[in-house]
Structure formats: C-alpha cells, structure tokens
C-alpha cells in the first residue's frame, strides 16, 4: 500500500535476517557474509568459512516428537511463551463484512458540511476500486447519519449507535489506523486471520494452539462460535477455511460449536452405550490407529487419535460448558434477554466468558452482516443492537470476575468502508463500499494500554496520517500480548520458516501496550 504523503511514520525497511527463510539458509547466508568480509581483508581463510558453513548445517534442529503426546513434545521444544505473557487467553469478536468506521468510532465532524460533494481526487488518489463502485460517475461524500458524543474521562467520540460501548470507552484501546492489502472479503478476511490472502495457512487461533497449547485438557484449545445470520443483513460466507490449521497438524484447527440445537452433534452416547463401553471402543480404535501410524507414518493419524480422546472428554465437559442454568440473575441483567437464545451474538459472548473461565485458549466469535453496501441507515442500527450490548456485557463480566487482567479481547472486521456513497446518496440513506486503507478496531484486556485512541486518519477517514497499523503488525501485537515473539513462532514448511505475520517484516505496535 502506498503511504499517504502526510504520514510521517514510515514502516521499517526490509532486513534479510527477518525474512522467514529457513534458519539453515540464514546461517548459510551469514557464513557467506563472513567469508566475503574475511576474503576482503585477508584473503587466505577459505577453509575456515567452508568449515563454518558445514557446522551451521549440521546444527539444524531435528524434529523429535513424543509418540504418546505429540502436541506436548513439540511445545516443549518450542520454548514458549518467549516471555512472561500479560494475557493467557484471547477472545476475538470478528465482525465479518467490514464495519463502517466513520459511523461508529472514527468521528469526522467536517463531513456534514460536505454532504453530496465529490471526494477530492487528492484524497482518493489512484486507488483501485471494487467492481461495485468502479463504474460510478461520482463519489459523493456521505456524512454519518448519526450523532456523536464524547464519553468517559478520555472524552472519546462515540456514535449514538453504540450506547453500551460508550459506557466502557475508558477501558478500550481503539486503533483507527488498521490497514490491509485486500479490497474484497475473501482475501481480506484470510489476510487478517492467517496472514496470507490465499487459503492454506494456519490462522491466529491455530498458531496459538500450536505455540501455547491447551490450558484445559477437557476442552478444545481453540473454539469457534458462529452467530446465526439475520436475513435482513448482507451476510458474507464464513467457513472452516478461516479456522483451519493449514499446514499445522489438524489438532490445532478451531473446533466450531453449532449455533443451534446440540452444540456438538452426537455428543451424548446412544441408548445402551455407557461410558465404559465407549472407553473400551476408543481403546480398541486407538490400538488400530497406532498400528496404522507405525505402518504408514502419517502424523495426521496421531492427530486423529488425539481428537478421539478429546471428543471423549468433551462428552462430559461440553454439556457443563453450555449449561447456563446456574448463571446468577446478575448475568441476565447484564447481557439482556438475547443471552437466553442460542445462536445470538449475545449468547455466544456469554459462552465465550464461560470458556475463558474454563481455560479455553482462544475463542473466536463470528458475527456476519456488516457488509453494508446499501441501506446503511436501515441495517446498521440492527447490527449495533445485536452486538453493542453483548460486547459491553462480555467486557464488564470479564472485568468483574477478575478475568480481564489476563484475557485479551479483540473486536475487528476484515476492512473498513468508504466515506463516499455506493449507489445513490439521498438525504436520509446511503451505502458504503469496501475500504482497505484504514479501519477502526478496538481491543481490551491483558497487556494493553487502556483508554487510548491510537493513530489518526484524514478528514475523510480515507487515508492514514499518523501511526499506521498494518494487519500483520496488528497480529504481531496480539501475539506479543500472549507472550509470543512473532518472529520466533515459526514452522518449517515448503522451504520457508512460516509465521503468522508472513514474509514481510512485521513489528509489535508498542504504543498499544501497557
């Protein structure tokens, strides 16, 4: 992405040692470097350099895996967390579709005076547009339909659509300058989740499951909750490609709980099969699987064994997890009536809190429908109604139960939306197209600096003028809160030391951290 000329904070330059090339190659490279320098000065030590590079190659780590518990063995070898983490677990509230930042938290008071004027060319520049608005003859500015007010001690401007978010505004770490490389949903949602626009890479949750492991052996390390779609909204597809473990073992993939009926299908044993019978059956299956593993040597067989065991334990732990009957009245007062309806975003937020209590490492809650190409005035209030109170309730609940100190909560979509109207702009309605150059997210909890707004966008919420945060830096910062150095959490695959933040250099946004 070309940076705005007003932007003073340039992202750092590329450095060869930070590229995700295999460690062996890096050592080879530095050996060659040494040789060049050496030859340049003395010219008689070729043998030494050759020896050095040979030693470097032989020092390559060997992958030894404990057969009984492969996940554990790998984790011990990884040496994680790299440093004492501020947050032990994370909850990611994913707003699929791309929430319109200028209608929610990125207040642009100057827009009202520019209603229906064309956005200046100097602002839009030569940016490529989506197929949905590229054909438009005009790009009329659509100021937000809603009023903004300052809230909290920080005096942060919040849209009237978010009355509950406004109440906790002093706890939030708002980032107005997240930016991404993709302008369409599929590549953008893959990029923010996996660090790559193309499918096949592990997502954030899988990296955490791989790197940090489970805190509770009876529940999956990484759980995904989907919110039931509202047909009035424009829902983009969300599927398991987003919580795939990519090239990592499939035991690190997210486990999706169903949003209606039984959270996990066929969880209860059938009539006439008791727990002991089930155990015997599993032991027999495990024996056969171990035989297959020793014959064929496919590590996925180990993953299969681990998953059977997990399913067995989940038969006891999931009913307890989803049983809300013991929640005190204060819970219902806080979350509101939606919390009793399975599949709502509010219900999922309550489940997310219960998972945090029970040691689930990473919970991702998907809420679709933010893709407001048209009828923003009609749809956006519905979206906010569905999510605003739930977010507030979740944060407040975590806070009063003492969980927010070591839990990280992230609220983000895959990109933002344009200030100009898609389709017709009328006095009381407008639409907004995809906008990758800047969008607003918030985070709260362990490791973050509360009550700040990071970064600034221009008067049109179109370009970044201060402190850009690319999604890979956003992800690096999330990892840092969890005690992970994003450059060190790597996995050798296809000749690369693969990592969540991808091959380009990424850095932790220190300004967000406490």
């Amino acid at each position, binding site marked *: 992405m070309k940076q705005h000329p007003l932007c003073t904070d340039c992202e750092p330059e590329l450095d060869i040692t930070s590229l995700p090339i295999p460690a062996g190659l890096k050592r080879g490279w530095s050996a060659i470097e040494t040789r060049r320098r050496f030859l340049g000065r003395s010219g008689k030590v070729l043998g030494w350099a050759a020896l050095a590079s040979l030693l470097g190659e032989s020092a390559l780590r060997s992958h030894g895996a404990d057969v*009984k*518990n492969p996940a*554990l063995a790998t984790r*011990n070898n990884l*040496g*994680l*967390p*790299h*440093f*004492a*983490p501020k947050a032990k677990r994370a909850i990611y509230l994913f707003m699929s579709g791309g929430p319109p930042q200028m209608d929610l938290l990125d207040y642009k008071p100057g827009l009202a005076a520019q209603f229906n004027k064309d956005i200046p060319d100097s602002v839009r520049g030569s940016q490529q547009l989506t197929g949905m608005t590229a054909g438009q003859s005009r790009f009329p500015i659509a100021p937000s339909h809603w009023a903004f007010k300052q809230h909290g001690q920080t005096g942060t401007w919040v849209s009237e659509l978010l009355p509950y978010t406004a109440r906790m505004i002093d706890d939030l770490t708002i980032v107005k300058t997240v930016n991404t490389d993709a302008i369409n949903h599929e590549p953008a949602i893959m990029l923010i989740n996996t660090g790559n626009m193309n499918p096949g890479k592990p997502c954030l949750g899988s990296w955490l499951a791989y790197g940090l492991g489970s*805190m*509770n*052996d*009876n529940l999956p390390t990484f759980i995904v909750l989907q919110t039931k779609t509202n047909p009035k909204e424009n829902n983009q597809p969300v599927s398991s490609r987003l919580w795939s473990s990519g090239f990592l073992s499939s035991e690190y993939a997210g486990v999706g709980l169903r949003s209606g009926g039984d959270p996990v299908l066929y969880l209860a044993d059938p009539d006439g099969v008791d727990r002991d019978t089930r155990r015997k059956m599993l032991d027999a299956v495990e024996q056969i699987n171990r035989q297959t593993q020793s014959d064929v040597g496919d590590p996925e067989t180990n993953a299969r064994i681990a998953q059977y065991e997990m399913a067995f334990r989940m038969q006891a732990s999931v009913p307890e997890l989803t049983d809300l009957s013991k929640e*005190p009245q*204060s819970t219902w007062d806080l979350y509101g009536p939606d919390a009793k309806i399975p599949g709502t975003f509010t219900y999922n937020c309550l489940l997310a809190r219960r998972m945090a*209590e*029970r*040691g689930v490492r990473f919970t991702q809650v998907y809420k679709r429908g933010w893709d407001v190409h048209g009828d923003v005035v009609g749809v956006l209030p519905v979206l906010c109604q569905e999510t605003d109170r739930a977010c507030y309730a979740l944060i407040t609940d975590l*806070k*009063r*139960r*003492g969980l927010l*100190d070591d839990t990280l909560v992230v609220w983000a979509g895959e990109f933002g939306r344009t200030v100009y109207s898609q389709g017709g702009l009328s006095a009381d309605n407008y639409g907004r197209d995809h906008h990758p150059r800047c969008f607003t997210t918030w985070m709260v909890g362990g490791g973050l*600096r509360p009550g700040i707004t990071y970064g600034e966008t221009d008067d049109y919420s179109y370009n970044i003028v201060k402190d850009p945060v690319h999604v890979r830096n956003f992800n690096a910062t999330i990892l840092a809160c969890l*005690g992970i150095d994003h450059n060190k959490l790597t996995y050798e695959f296809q000749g690369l030391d693969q990592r969540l933040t991808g091959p380009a250099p990424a850095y932790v946004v*220190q*300004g967000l951290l*406490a």
Partner: protein
Amino acid sequence: MQRARIPTAAALRVTATAFILLLSPFVFRLNGHTHADWLQFFGRFHPALLHIPIGFIVLVPILEVAGVRRTALRESAGFVLRLAVAFALPTLALGYMLAYGSGDTGSTVTGHMWGAIVLCISLMICALVRPAWTIGQQPRVYPALLTFSLLALLWTGHQGGSLSHGSDYLTRYMPAGMRHVFSSSPPGIGADPASFYAQRIHPVLDQKCVACHGSSTEKGGLRLDSYPNLMHGGKDGLVVIAGKPEASVLLARVTLPTSDKHFMPAEGRTPLTPDEIKMIRAWITAGASSTATSIPGFAAAAQSGDPPPQPVGDYSALMPEIQRMQQQQGAKLVLVSAKPSDGLILRTVDIASTFNDAQLAQFQKFAPYIVEAELSRTDITDAAFETLRSFTHLRALRLDGTAITGSGLAKLAPLKQLTYLNLSNTHLTMQAAATLKSMPQLRHVYLFNTPAEPDQASAKSKP
C-alpha cells in the same frame, strides 16, 4: 654451594618495564576522550589474545607441583613462565590501547587496568627470582609471588568479565540465598524516590544507557546512573540543560537518524522508544527537576502500576517431576515463560472439581517457585490458606468459585508480592473482607457475587 645471582641486565630490564607500565596510565590518561581508530582496531584483539597468557600462568604452578615427581616438568615451568610474561605484556598493551582508543573510563576499567599492571610486574619478578629458587635459595619469595600472581589474575579476570558481560553476570542466576551475600545494593539515584525523575526517567536511562555510561564504564566521561551525574554531564560538557530540550545533547543524540555515527545508544543497542523520548523531552522542558512529581501530560508512576516481578529461585532439580506432571492428566505446574526464573503456574482446571486441600498441600515443596495459583472452582476450603502462606513468590491467587469464606485470609498478609486476589463467587464474609485492608500490596481484588461485594464496583484497584 653455588650462589645464583640475579643478572643485573635482566633486573634492569624488569625495573624499566615496570616503570613504564606504572607510568603510562599517568601519561596516557583514560579521560573519556576517544583516540585514533587504529588504537581500537588493535585493541579489539585484546579479548582474543588474553586467554593465551592466562593459560600459561595457570600452567606454571601445575608444572611446578608436578615437577616434584618429574623434574623435566619443573624445567619446562621456567619456559612456560617466560612465555606467560611474553604474552602478558602485549595483552596488557592491547588492552590499554582498547581502553584509551575507545575512551573507556570507570571504576571497573581502572580496576582491570591496575590489576593487569600489577599482575605483569609480579610475573616479571617471578621470572627474575625463579632461578634462585630452583637451586634452593630463597625458598619463600617465588612461591609467594606466584600465589600473588594467581590472585591478581583472578581479580583482573573478574573485572574484565564484568566489563564484557556486565557486573551482574555471575550473580543474576545465582540462587537467591547466595545472591543476597554477593550482590551489593544498588547505589542511590540522588533524587526524591517519588519524583518523576525516579519513577519514569531513571528507569529508562538505567535500562538503555547505563551499560556504557555507568559506574563500571564511563564512555565520554559521562555517567547517567544518578541525577547528579546526569546533570554534571561528560567530558564535552552538559548533556541536559533544564528547560531547553533543543539544547540538551542527551536528547539530540538519541533522536539522530540511527545511521548517524553519533546516534545513541551506540553499537546496535536497543534505541529509546518514541514515548520514552517524548517523556524525557517533557521532563527537560519542565525544568529537569529531581523533586517534581508530575509533568504535564504524563503520569508519575508507570501506567501498568504493578511492581516488577521478582525472579524465583532455581528449581531445576524438581524439573523431572514437573515434566512428569505435565504428561499426565490432573493438576500440573506450568512454566510462565521460557525463562525459568519467571516461575511456575499451578493449574488445576482439568480436575478442578476434585482438587482439595490435601492435594494442594502436596505442592508445598514447589511453594517458593509458584507465582500464580489457579484454584478457581476447586474443592478447596479455608484450610488452604495454611498451605498458601508458604507460597512466598505468589503474585496471583485465584480462588473464585470455591467454598472459601475467608476465615484465615489474614495468613496471606506476609505474601509481599501478592498483587492479584480473586475471591469472586465465594462465600467471603464481610468480616474476612475487612482483613484485606491490612494487605497494601494487593492491587487487584475481586469480590463479585460474594456476601462481601461492595455496592458500587466489585473490582477494587488501589492507587
């Protein structure tokens, strides 16, 4: 009986060399100025060369002792001793060139230098008097000198190690009890402990600058390890001019482009962050005071507010047992991070409903290494406080969802590092909650959904 005379010529040589060695520090004073680059170029071979004379010096007494049985070895001892002298002198010269060239000063540098000079002179005299000793005359002088040389070597080597690895290199991972004896308390910073300088500025300088500008090394004659030293400046004058950030060299040097050769911190050390620079600028603008407690726009205490964690002792002997626990289902101890001294977390969530006081008591032997106890929703009772009082490094204690009533809570009072206490969803009584007031170290206390829950906020954060 033959009488060995010390050859006059040799004695003269030794005297002359010793004289030069003793004099040169006064001629070429280590005054913090850097000198010609070639000095440093050669000087940087000092850390490589120095191991050779050390080897020879250590070998001499070995050969002398072994020579009691095998005379051939004693003959070679003389040769090795002369070799030691032959290598020690150039090593000393290179070391001096390194310090003089790079402008190093400081107590450790001078200690290392004088140690080396004394060592060299002592070695030369050893070589001079040895022939007399071999034929039985003056049986005490040579052994005494040799012992002295070895002690000088030990002292000099330690000073040198402190220079290259840092003065706390040996003590950092020492078991806590031993460290108590060895490490000295940090020197005063010459400012009000509650001041903005002490709270915010000094920690930055201490972390980023003092390695080169402290008591052990004073590059450019500048020390930044206390307020008076900071304001005193270095060889080139003042570095902080109160009220004038643009004229303060300290700020100028840290805000140069990183490629500039005057950029600080030098040699690829971690640069100051923009926030730290902003803070120092604001402090200088406001008068660079040693007493002011607040600067417009900045909080006096670091924002996280929690005291830095204390490293736990060495538990490597218990590692096999910890690993065995991790392989099994049940309560386990988990490392906080890859750094063992960050301590252990006691995790019981897998078997929370059956984990009771007796099981907790079994973790007694790990007590001093546990920094966080996750006992949420376990079966423990008030009797657990008896065990928990021995968890001396405990920083966070989660008792939420247990049957605790808080009787005996006061036993936690001596846990000075305990900052987080979660008693949500317990039967905590008002009476027990009152004892929390006697624990000023607590910063995050949660009493949600207990009989003792305050009306307003359930989370109490003390300033």
